[in-house]
Every structure is written in structure tokens, then in C-alpha cells.
């Protein structure tokens, strides 16, 4: 089989799931291609560390005024629409940012517990724990950015492409996933009674710490890394996620479902080389992580017993709740667009969310049986 092209390998760095099964297989068997891909990734990460910078804060109103001034100098230009444009654009952009941000927070929260196992790199890293309970950390936008920096310290492999299997009902979902799939006896008013069921296969994601990558990042940023403990280089943490069942209740054709009920087996963790504790301790000592995030994670205690749910502080709030006797968290977006309730019981993580109020989400969650 022909070697992979440079273009294919570079694109796979940005879109790992775009790599076809045959190419993935080739990559696993072909040392020269694996080495080329590694070099491509190092260069890409280096460029990203320099160029994936904080976005400039755009002042649209000021921009319009500047353009107005420039356009006035132009013969035949009409400027009457600029005032209207300014006020409308300001109002619209403010609302859309709030709405999209709030929904993104909910999506992030759902992804964080592994309901969609092919999650982000940050997810791969922070969900390394076999949970017996859940806890939340409030992440600011800066914290989220700092989390994404972690990929510069090692190699991340995300699970292969997922193809959801549509099944007829809860019974079929139970048979396909091996879990007893729960259904709500209560649904908020207006929610359709019929749900569409999907079963997503589990996968394995991993993070391999790399001293050379870490040093490359440090050199690019003219900073010093803490001494790397013996045995850490090449240590791998693997996260094995189980099947996930999603039941979606949606009345309209809108992009946001009315209600989603999901459940998945708690992820399991496997390590080679250093222990989870050692890797966590070193990663938390790396530069780039905000001190707030660092202290929040450290305060959670035993990392193999707590599933961390990252909650974007700017867009959502969370607080503990009790669902059927189990401790969980309710996460609500800051604009009232929707809510999610997440809890863990008997090795299964459950989530109920959608465009509904927190009380409705909680009542729905308590009715699962």
C-alpha cells in the first residue's frame, strides 16, 4: 500500500476522525509514515502554540464609526444607514454570543462526561478518572484555553470514528449496549412521548507524555519546565469508554432537542509507566495552567475516584443536587436556554438535558426507571 501523503497526514492532525480505516491501519504498521506524522504533529503544535493566540477583542461600534468616517470621504457614499447598522449589529451580536455561548456550555458539559466519547483533547485529558462520584470545576475562558495547551506536552489519540446505531426503542438499546436503559415516566409539558434511540460504541483515547514535545513548547515560549520525573517520558494514560445510549425527544425541526436522556458506563482507566497520581502531579505543575484551575483540581482529592465536569464559568452555573438518592450536579446556562442534570449510580453515568428548566430536568431525572 502506498504511503500516506503529506496533505493527508497534516489534515489528520486537525481532524483525526477524517483518517480512514485503511489509512489508520497503514499508519499503525508503517514506521516511516508514523515517524513523518510525528514530525508533522510537532511542527503543527509548535505553530499552534505561537499562532493560536487570544482573539482580539473587536469593537464593532467603533469599527462602524471608523468606516463611516472613511466612507464619508467617498463621493456618492450614503451614510444614513450606519447609525441603524451600528445599533442593530451591537444588539444582535450581543444576543447571539450569549445564546451560542450558553448552548456551547451545555454541549461541553455533556461531552465532558463521555456521552460523546470522541471528545476534545481537553476532555481526553481531564476525564482520566474512574469515577465513583462527580464534581464540577468552574472554568473561565482562560482556563479552557490553558487546558488546550496540554496537548503540547504529549501525544493525544482520540477514539476512532463513531457511527451511531439507530435502534427502535429502549429495549433494543438495552440489548445493543448491555446496559439496562432507563426511561422517564415524567416529561416536561410539550415534549413528545416518542424518542429516537441511538447507541454509540465505546472507544479508547490515550495521552502519552512526551519530554521532547514539552521541551519544544518550553523553548518556543522561552520558559523553563519543572524537572521531569524519572519514568514519566512515554507514560501513557488510556481511557476506555463504554457504549452510550442517547434518547432524543424532539418535537420540532430546530437544532436544539427538547429533551435528551443519556447514559454510559463510567470510563475506565489504564496506565503504562508512571501512575495516575504522578502524571497528574506533574501536569498540574506545568506552566500555562491557571492557578485557579490547578487549585480546583487539586482540591478534588483522589483523581481516580472523581469524574471532573468542566463547567464554563462565563456561560453556565452548577450546584449539587440529589437524584434518586445519588449525588449529582445541575448545570444551567446563564441565559435560561437549557439545563443538564448529571449523576452517577452503580457505575453508570446518567445525564438529562435539553431546552428545559432545571426543575423540569430534575423532575425528569428523578422519574427515570
Amino acid at each position: 500500500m502506498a504511503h500516506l501523503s503529506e496533505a493527508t497526514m497534516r489534515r489528520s492532525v486537525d481532524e483525526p476522525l477524517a483518517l480512514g480505516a485503511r489509512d489508520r491501519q497503514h499508519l499503525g504498521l508503517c514506521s516511516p509514515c508514523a515517524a513523518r506524522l510525528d514530525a508533522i504533529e510537532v511542527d503543527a503544535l509548535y505553530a499552534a502554540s505561537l499562532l493560536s493566540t487570544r482573539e482580539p477583542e473587536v469593537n464593532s461600534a467603533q469599527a462602524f464609526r471608523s468606516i463611516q468616517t472613511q466612507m464619508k470621504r467617498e463621493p456618492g457614499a450614503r451614510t444614513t444607514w450606519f447609525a441603524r447598522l451600528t445599533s442593530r449589529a451591537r444588539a444582535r451580536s450581543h444576543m447571539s454570543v450569549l445564546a451560542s455561548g450558553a448552548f456551547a456550555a451545555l454541549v461541553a458539559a455533556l461531552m465532558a462526561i463521555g456521552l460523546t466519547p470522541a471528545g476534545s483533547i481537553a476532555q481526553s485529558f481531564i476525564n482520566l478518572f474512574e469515577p465513583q462520584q462527580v464534581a464540577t470545576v468552574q472554568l473561565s475562558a482562560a482556563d479552557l484555553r490553558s487546558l488546550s495547551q496540554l496537548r503540547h506536552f504529549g501525544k493525544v489519540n482520540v477514539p476512532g470514528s463513531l457511527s451511531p446505531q439507530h435502534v427502535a426503542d429502549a429495549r433494543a438499546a438495552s440489548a445493543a449496549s448491555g446496559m439496562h436503559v432507563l426511561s422517564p415516566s415524567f416529561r416536561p409539558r410539550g415534549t413528545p412521548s416518542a424518542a429516537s434511540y441511538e447507541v454509540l460504541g465505546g472507544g479508547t483515547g490515550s495521552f502519552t507524555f512526551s519530554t521532547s514535545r514539552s521541551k519544544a513548547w518550553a523553548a518556543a515560549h522561552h520558559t523553563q519546565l519543572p524537572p521531569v520525573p524519572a519514568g514519566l517520558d512515554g507514560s501513557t494514560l488510556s481511557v476506555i469508554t463504554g457504549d452510550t445510549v442517547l434518547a432524543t425527544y424532539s418535537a420540532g425541526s430546530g437544532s436544539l432537542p427538547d429533551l435528551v436522556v443519556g447514559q454510559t458506563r463510567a470510563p475506565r482507566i489504564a496506565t503504562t509507566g508512571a501512575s495516575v497520581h504522578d502524571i497528574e502531579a506533574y501536569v498540574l505543575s506545568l506552566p500555562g495552567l491557571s492557578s485557579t484551575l490547578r487549585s480546583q483540581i487539586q482540591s478534588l482529592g483522589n483523581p481516580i475516584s472523581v469524574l471532573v465536569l468542566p463547567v464554563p464559568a462565563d456561560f453556565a452555573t452548577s450546584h449539587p443536587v440529589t437524584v434518586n438518592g445519588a449525588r449529582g450536579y445541575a448545570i444551567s446556562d446563564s441565559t435560561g436556554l437549557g439545563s443538564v442534570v448529571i449523576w452517577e449510580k452503580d457505575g453508570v453515568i446518567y445525564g438529562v438535558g435539553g431546552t428545559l428548566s432545571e426543575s423540569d430536568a430534575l423532575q425528569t431525572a428523578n422519574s427515570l426507571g
Partner: protein
Amino acid sequence: MVSVASRWVSLSDRERAFEGLFESEYSRVTAIAYRVLGNASESEDVAQDVFCQFYRLHPPDAPYARSWLYRAATHRALNLIRSNKRRAGRESTVALEHQVTAGAGSREMDPSLKVERSESERELREAMSRLSRKSAAVLALRYGGLSYAEVADALGVRIGQVGTLLRRAEHALRREMNHGTSI
């Protein structure tokens, strides 16, 4: 009378179309310029110049509008960074912006670290200015948030070429930063 009404309608439609284009693309055009310049104020200047130029020369609902704006912003920013006249002013502003950014994230920053970051920022801009125009452009466009398809449109290449261009540009950037030699 009919011609006056038609002209009014035409003008209104044009303004409305430009309004939509501005709203949807201004922040992105600024972000692309920012990847080259590293300076928010200059990036906004570039974006506004580009929008004004586009408004004067093209219909705002043209199918090529977005790719034209992206390409124009990239080239204008590259022209600017290669101009020595503004370099001194840019460096001082970049240093100031870094202090503000770093201060927000890490409370009080070591002054020596501020100097190092400013120096690192200056090295990056110089490295970008030494890259080939196409390499610098693909970096600005991709890290400015464009998809592979959008980068291909803006550069006028096939989508299959974007990965290769990006790979070569990133390799060249690393070499420029590490060795200060062009490839």
C-alpha cells in the same frame, strides 16, 4: 420617477447586503490580520480598510465576497508587516498588549518575563515576514479560524493542496524561529 425608485431600492439592498457581510465577517477578517500583525488595533485598521475597499469596488452579495475579504486582509497585513516604517511603533504596542494580557491571566507578571514575551512576539512577526507570501498567508488564514475549504477558496487552490501548504508553512515557520534561516 421609476428610475429614482429603482435606484433607491437598489441602494437599500446594497447597504443591507453589506451590513450582513460586515456583521458576519468583520471579527474573522480582523482575526486573520491579527495572526500576521499581532496587534489588535492595526488588525482592525486592516479589516476596515479591506471592507471599505470591497464596498467601493464590488457588489456585497458577490459569491466571492468572503474569500476576497480574507485574501485581501492577509495580503494587506503582510504588506504592513514588511514595511519597516511602522515596526518601531508596533513593537512598543505589542509589548504593551502582552503586559495587559499576561496581567489578566497571571495577576502580577515578572518584568523579565514580560520582556521575554515581547521579544518572542517580535521574533514571530519577523519570522512571518520572512516566509514566502503563500506560506504566511496559509498560516494566517488557517489559524485565523478558516476551514480547509475556506482556505482553499481564499488562496485559489484545490482543497487537497491546503494540507501540503500548511505542512510546509509550519515547518518553515519552525525553522525560521529556531534558526533564523529561510527555506
